[in-house]
């Protein structure tokens, strides 16, 4: 292991901005995709069976 302490780990040898900037954005983007996918499916399931004919007439 390359780290003596938590501070050393977080400092990433002086590259903290670049390393954590990559990891945090990747984690947030992927988590956001999952949240949006779950929400989309939940909404569709809630609407399933509810007079879908009506939405067709409106379109």
């Amino acid at each position, binding site marked *: *292991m*390359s*780290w003596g302490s938590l501070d050393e*780990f977080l400092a*990433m*040898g*002086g*590259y903290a*901005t*670049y*390393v954590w*900037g*990559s*990891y945090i*954005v*990747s984690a947030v*983007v*992927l988590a956001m*995709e*999952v949240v949006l*996918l*779950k929400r*989309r*499916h*939940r909404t*569709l*399931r809630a*609407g*399933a*069976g*509810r007079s*879908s*004919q009506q*939405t*067709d007439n409106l379109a």
Partner: protein
Amino acid sequence: MALNWFKYSSPQTFYPLAGRLIPVFAVLAAVLGAVGLYIGFFVAPTDFQQGEAYRIIFIHVPAAWMSMFIYLVMAAWAALGLILNTRLSSMMATALAPTGAVMTFLALWTGSLWGKPMWGTWWAWDARMTSELILLFLYIGFMALQASIDDPRRADKAGAILALVGAVNVPIIYFSVKWWNTLHQGASISVGRSPSMASTMLLGMLVMALAYWMYSIAATLMRVRSIILERERNAQWVRDLAGAPA
């Protein structure tokens, strides 16, 4: 063969199957991701040239690989939908595009953050980066084109043509570091040559690539389920889902 593959080409039978598969791939993604990050941060040594900045590799290369691989899979499903006229194939292509775009964006983002400390620039118009940016535009173009056409079957066909034409870009991205003089380094691993990195670094990268792969499958299956519900909303079986547990 008793197994009938065409049975699963019907959206109605694939919908519950996908629902059962999602947790499997989600768990695989989480476990592989945890193991990969552990190897990446606590087992893999500091790079003698790049210091700790190289640790971006554990998410940069997997995202870049998936961005290209997803495009090829998307084009293959689109082609299958175009040739066989199977609805589910086209839905798979549509479902893959946003995740492919996400992977492309992440490859560009992490690459930019890696390029700044190593090359002194966030961006360069060299072959590797430019062709990867074109890949992002292809994904966005595919989604925009499909969204602009009201009739789903026509949207499928138009999207398939775009996906197939755009597929030539993938080998250009992959071989760009060989064909042109680029700022980007050569392939980290390639067939017939031993990898140019420490074995624990390579292991971390491969485990993370598998995690990204499993994630992409889970996300695509989640999206294809929504697409099935949208397109089949007037089918009796979708109406019968009302009240049933999701």
